[in-house]
């Protein structure tokens, strides 16, 4: 899994790539905990280069959302590949996560 962290104003952008599965999702979980530890509350995860996610990866997203909600923070997702969208729907995630087509649209939603 690849992970690039950027700042865009007050928003922490995590650009993810590769596979988010049982072998790799801990990297994202640790990064989320680090960001929360820094007191950051606005997080955008960009899935543009993610080509695979399983329930372990999905679980990390839910954990991150729950932690951010506790501190009145916000987690937004963007750029999920078309062929993976149905799994986000089946998981019920389209009901609880704001999901945008591009990173730009997601960023605009924060302002």
């Amino acid at each position, binding site marked *: 899994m690849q992970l690039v962290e950027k700042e865009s104003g007050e928003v922490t952008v995590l650009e993810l790539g590769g596979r988010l*599965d*049982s*072998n790799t999702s801990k990297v994202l979980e640790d990064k989320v905990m680090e960001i929360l530890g820094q007191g950051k509350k606005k997080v955008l995860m960009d899935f543009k280069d993610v080509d*695979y996610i*399983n*329930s*372990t990866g*999905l*679980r990390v997203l*839910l*954990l991150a*959302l*729950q932690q951010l*909600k*506790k501190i009145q923070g916000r987690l937004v997702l963007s750029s999920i*590949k*078309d*062929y*993976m969208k*149905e*799994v986000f729907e*089946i*998981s*019920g995630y389209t*009901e*609880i996560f704001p999901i945008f087509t591009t990173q730009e649209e997601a960023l605009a939603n924060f302002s």
Partner: protein
Amino acid sequence: MEPVFSLRIANRLLELDRVADAVEAFGEAHGLAAKLRYQLRLVLDELLTNTISYGYPEDGEHVITVSMSQDGSRLRFLLVDDALPFDPLTAKTPDLGAEADARPIGGLGIHLVRAIMDRVAYERVGGTNRLLLEKDI
């Protein structure tokens, strides 16, 4: 019923790459859509990850067989292992209508399997779990 592949894998998570590669190879050769290839990989990943992670509390070396066959527009998978008895059909699944704060963290994998596949049948035969999964394409 035309056999596509039959793999014997060890009870280690790294072995799942071989299963994913076999599904991808079949999918590419038969022009399966990216969504279907991904969902089939996901189903096998979820089931095998469960078995490998929780099915062998005493550890040790075990063999799991994963086979796939095709009957016209029906894809059939058979998973056989000697892990602890586990019937994914009776496993609890999370309340996916709950608010984010109240969502349970576990159980999603089995829910995905049941939602994606068209038919799932489980039997415990002589100390083995046999799980049959079908998907109409």
